[in-house]
């Protein structure tokens, strides 16, 4: 056998004689590429940078430009209105301010209700699924499974399951002797359960997988050391698991907040924004305002405000999770 043995396993036979590359061949170098120009790193970044500029940066700047106009892309006149779109969003009593802030409130509520659940439940699940027990892989797959569904599937499914008058959920509650006739998709506070519940069911698998990866990165020795020091299960969790998960936790919290703040499909399909406009999210408002009613200037202003709000929230999250310096 001339194939190189890597990590105790035989390399695939296809790597014929002499083709074996030992770990030494992959040794990383810290020196720069010989003869490389100073442009090299930028050239490597270029493909992404071009896409980023064309599809993210340029539109973002364009949005600001649109937001300063009364903009309808099909009409020849796009009068410049200065900050009027913004002022109208902040002035109470205008046509736009009421619906916009109602949509921001709906978004805020959705974030408030869904993020804690999407941070805590997946963590508990990940810790559970990190144990050794028979059928572990099955359960890992089972909890992740809903995540592969599209939002349209999830939305329409739950719209009908939770229908107050003809839905399966109320039907089964009825069979159990609970004659509640719960207005899941038409009445507060039930609508929030109808939005948050399916969302948690749908997306918790993703966060669980991230946590699982994080848990597997925590060195076993730390737990052993903690045990030696007499730490119980709770103390181990507090002093080993949680600090070990900190970078993962920041990632999970930030992405979950942003994902929840961008919620669109669930209120669009499950509650249709009802009752009234109480569950219409900010993205849903912006979409309807700009793409259905063609008031793009106002929609652009609203989306810019939403963006600023999200940047602010992300900053607060980072600061809150900042590694505390030892004094």
């Amino acid at each position, binding site marked *: 056998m001339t194939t190189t043995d890597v990590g105790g396993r035989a390399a695939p036979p296809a790597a014929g004689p002499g083709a074996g590359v030992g770990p030494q061949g992959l040794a990383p170098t810290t020196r720069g590429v010989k003869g490389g120009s100073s442009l090299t790193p930028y050239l490597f970044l270029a493909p992404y940078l071009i896409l980023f500029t064309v599809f993210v940066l340029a539109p973002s700047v364009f949005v600001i430009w649109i937001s300063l106009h*009364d903009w*309808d*892309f*099909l*009409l*020849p*006149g796009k*009068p*410049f*209105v*200065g900050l*009027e779109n913004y002022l*109208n969003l902040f002035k109470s009593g*205008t*046509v*736009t301010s009421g*619906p916009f802030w109602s949509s921001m409130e709906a978004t805020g509520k959705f974030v408030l209700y869904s993020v804690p659940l999407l941070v805590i439940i997946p963590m508990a699940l990940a810790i559970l699924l990190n144990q050794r027990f028979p059928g572990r892989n099955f359960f890992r797959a089972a909890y992740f499974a809903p995540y592969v569904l599209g939002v349209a599937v999830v939305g329409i499914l739950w*719209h*009908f399951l939770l*229908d*107050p*008058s*003809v839905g399966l959920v109320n039907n089964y509650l009825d069979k159990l002797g609970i004659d509640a*006739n719960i*207005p899941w*998709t*038409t*009445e507060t506070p039930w609508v929030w359960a109808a939005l948050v519940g399916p969302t948690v069911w749908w997306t918790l698998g993703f966060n669980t997988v991230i946590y699982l990866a994080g848990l597997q990165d925590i060195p076993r020795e730390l737990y052993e050391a903690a045990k030696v020091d007499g730490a119980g299960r709770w103390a181990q969790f507090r002093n080993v698991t949680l600090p070990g998960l900190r970078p993962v936790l920041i990632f999970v919290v930030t992405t979950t907040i942003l994902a929840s703040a961008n919620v669109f499909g669930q209120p669009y399909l499950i*509650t*249709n924004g*009802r*009752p*009234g*406009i*109480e569950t219409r999210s900010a993205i849903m408002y912006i979409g*309807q305002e700009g*793409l*259905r*009613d*063609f*008031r793009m*200037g*106002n929609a652009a202003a609203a989306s810019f405000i939403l963006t600023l709000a999200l940047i602010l929230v992300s900053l607060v999250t980072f600061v809150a999770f900042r590694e505390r310096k030892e004094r």
Partner: protein
Amino acid sequence: MGKDQSTNGGGLNRRQFLGVGAGAAAGMLLAACGGSSTPPGAGGQASDDLFGSGAEYSGPNVSLAFWNGFTGGDGPFMRKLVDQFNSEHQNIKVSMNVLRWEDFYPKVPTAVQSGNGPDIAIMHIDNLATNAARQVIIPLDPVAQLLDLQEDDFYPQVWQAGIYKGNRYGIPLDTHPLLFYYNNKSLQQGGVDGAPTDKASFEAAVTSMKDKGVEYPFWVPSDWPAHLMWWSLIHQFGGAPYSEDASQAQFNSDAGVQALTWMADQAKQGYSPKNIALDAQAVAFRQQKDAMTWDGIWMMNEWAKVKSLDWGAAPIPNIGGTQAVWASSHNFTVTKQAANDKNKAQAAKVFIKWISDHSIDWAKSGQVPARKSVRESPEFQQLEVQSIAAKELEFVRFPPAVAGIGDLTQPTFQLAVNEAMLGKKDPKAALDAATQKANALLEANRKKYGG
């Protein structure tokens, strides 16, 4: 929104741009894009030669993109017609694309703008003016002329609705009113003899069914098509949602409040379940839980699919004192994309004529043909439900044909009806807010489209 205030002092605004009239503007656009020999400045009639002469097309092979929103039971009927058209016309190939109406209206302008949109599109009458003003669709006066379509062959209100600023933009295909559907078994159970026709007999039927064990005899939804029920009722109570020239909203008039109160009362008195979410009343009617429902004529084939359902249809009963019912109409439009190619425009003309001539087959999908000659044909008389709906034509109330009016529906009275039906606001308060908002939006639209 007070959009244009800051620009009124100087510079160009939309009013000035549109001042020339969208028809003339579109005409110039055609002259510019079509490369035709029409001299510029010929105004709205500039497109005369775009559609060629006569009602036939004999040019080279051409393909047409035809978009519509027939996602329901109506889609297969139109597809069959398109297939038949294709097989009878060797040099024209029509490919049909179906989108939900909610996605259709936002998408068509963008798609047309990029050149990947439809050449022919179906639009409702309340969207014609908007799309004409936004120059998505082009004037069809020459088409009506060449195809020899006469006003007296159409329902006058439908025919008139296709005109915006002196130019025709839509060729009416059909009319689709709201209908009153009932479950025969439930009516029998309640000892109701025949479909009720007025307030007294309708309320008697509801009470008697309720007494005899029909839990919820009349489901009044909170979402679509609840606002269309209200649209019918406000006219019945002697009012109208908009003033004659559609410059003012008057949702909160006595008639409007009476209409919405009557609807909300159905749930309050236990004749309808509370909290009916989107589409639930239609599901309930199929499941025979809903004894009576008001829904579009296009739903008839959905009911027909349920074998065990013994249903009937009647005109919407006269609750308020004046017979009236909501209706809309599908229209053929030709987009400015087709105006770039004479062959396409002329083939579109042939397609519109052919479908219009075959509108009896379209009627079978649950529509009343726009053409009187088709409605009076013996073939149409045999379509039972459609004939009942045709009787409603005497008292249909269409949405006004004003640019931007379609955008008002959802944020104003559709929302108010929802809030009242879900008990979030009382009818008067909900309609007050909706009226105020609608007037602000109308004001903004006047600035945007140059009223």
